[in-house]
């Protein structure tokens, strides 16, 4: 006689009856990620993320789903499909194909961004993600080295509407502004962020000495990530561009030199920036992310240089 399967989910009424107010639904987390929650509720969830590892894991899984989708359907393809389908269904040209300030699309975005809207949040990704990497009780000792042991560098893409968390490997254009966020290695005495662009240009984006910091008292990774004050406006170079963050227990000068040399070796050996993830540098830990710059500018007249906000 075959073993009977039991089905649990159909007894979910027991959950319905005993619901507590602390439950954060999957849908609400999706609204949180989309930036649709009111400020107060967003703040509550951000605070909860600081102390609730399972909740953080849930949000990270949702972000992973989003990243997978964006990889599968980059904006160029979405736009093409949308316009194609809208044209095919065009029974009312003035409603679907209307262009300009009064188009329904524009009205929808204006509403979603307005303070009077229930959402009203311009910071789709930045505020939400700022707390996501806080790992409660995470100071359990030294973290393992290497990029795969934990993301230490991420970036936000700034726009007129605010900031959103960037996706590793996403396509960006000239004129878009990036701001990096780091999850510091508390053991380090020096840190450097180095970039390699599609033309093989190597740049030290920023560097810091941690000689005076509390890295001698605790190991592990900083519980919160911090935003760097510098921002980077993308120039017209196309192709993959990668940014490495490297933490070292040596001096800053040595690290800068080693990082520059290692990055130049990457360029000289024509390694694929979409695949290489670490520099050949003696380090405590390092991590990297990359973008793919495509042709076409976001806006005119943007300076292709570092600038403070």
């Amino acid at each position: 006689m075959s073993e009977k399967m039991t089905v649990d989910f159909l007894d979910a009424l027991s959950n319905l009856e005993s619901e507590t107010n602390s439950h954060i639904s999957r849908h609400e987390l999706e609204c949180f990620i989309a930036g649709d929650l009111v400020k107060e509720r967003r703040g509550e969830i951000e605070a909860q993320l600081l102390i609730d590892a399972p909740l953080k894991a849930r949000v990270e899984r949702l972000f992973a789903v989003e990243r997978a989708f964006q990889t599968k359907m980059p904006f160029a393809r979405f736009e093409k499909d949308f316009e194609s389908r809208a044209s095919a269904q065009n029974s009312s040209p003035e409603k679907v194909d209307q262009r300009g300030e009064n188009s329904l699309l524009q009205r929808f975005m204006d509403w979603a961004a307005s303070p009077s809207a229930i959402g009203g949040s311009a910071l789709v990704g930045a505020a939400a993600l700022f707390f996501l990497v806080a790992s409660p009780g995470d100071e359990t000792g030294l973290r393992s080295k290497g990029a795969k042991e934990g993301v230490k560098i991420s970036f936000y893409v700034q726009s007129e509407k605010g900031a959103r968390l960037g996706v590793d490997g996403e396509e960006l254009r000239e004129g878009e502004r990036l701001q990096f966020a780091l999850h510091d290695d508390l053991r380090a005495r020096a840190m450097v962020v180095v970039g390699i662009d599609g033309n093989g240009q190597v740049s030290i984006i920023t560097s810091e000495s941690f000689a005076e910091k509390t890295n001698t008292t605790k190991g592990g990774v900083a519980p919160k990530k911090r935003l760097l004050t510098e921002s980077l406006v993308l120039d017209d170079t196309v192709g993959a561009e990668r940014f490495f963050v490297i933490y070292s227990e040596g001096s800053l000068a040595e690290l800068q030199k080693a990082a520059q040399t290692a990055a130049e070796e990457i360029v000289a050996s024509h390694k694929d920036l979409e695949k290489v993830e670490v520099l050949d540098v003696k380090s405590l830990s390092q991590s990297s992310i990359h973008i793919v710059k495509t042709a076409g500018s976001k806006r005119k007249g943007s300076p292709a240089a570092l600038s403070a906000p």
Partner: protein
Amino acid sequence: MKKSTESTLSEKEALREFSERYAARVYGRCRYIIHDEQEAEDAMQDVFIKAMKNLDGFRQEAAPLTWLTRIATNHCLNIIRAKRAPWHEKYKTEVKVRGEGENSAAIRFAEDDQLLQLCLRQVDKDLAEIAIYHFVDEMNQAEICKLVNVSAPTLRKRLRSFIDLSRDAIRQEMPNVDFRPALVCR
């Protein structure tokens, strides 16, 4: 950072932001109900087009994503009901194949999810919609009541109805399925 003085985005920028904020989630809903990847992509675009056309019907007390989710759920439920795809043979085959060599936890999750998806095809759209919000979106009573504009007792009654109908449908096709004893609804 230099602050823009422009109050509106270009249409391309608006569409880009729109897709970045909502496309993944709307697609996820469509894919969950429809299964077929291409059809889900088409459905996602149709949902956005519908939303654009019906902006005047947007209830401003709901979050945009909530509104879009509802449109997507109903749109996709209509699609699968129109197709009335046969499900039980495909399900049996998949479970049997999957049951060989995999751990029980993985099978359990897959089975429950598949069972839910299959049940959605067997009940009225109103019941299916509520079931999705409860089982998939994990919405609480208050959220669902507000979204579909029903009272809490009505919600519990409809959910109970979904459970009973689903059990009957499953029992007819899968005699070796066992359910826990049903709870009495207050």
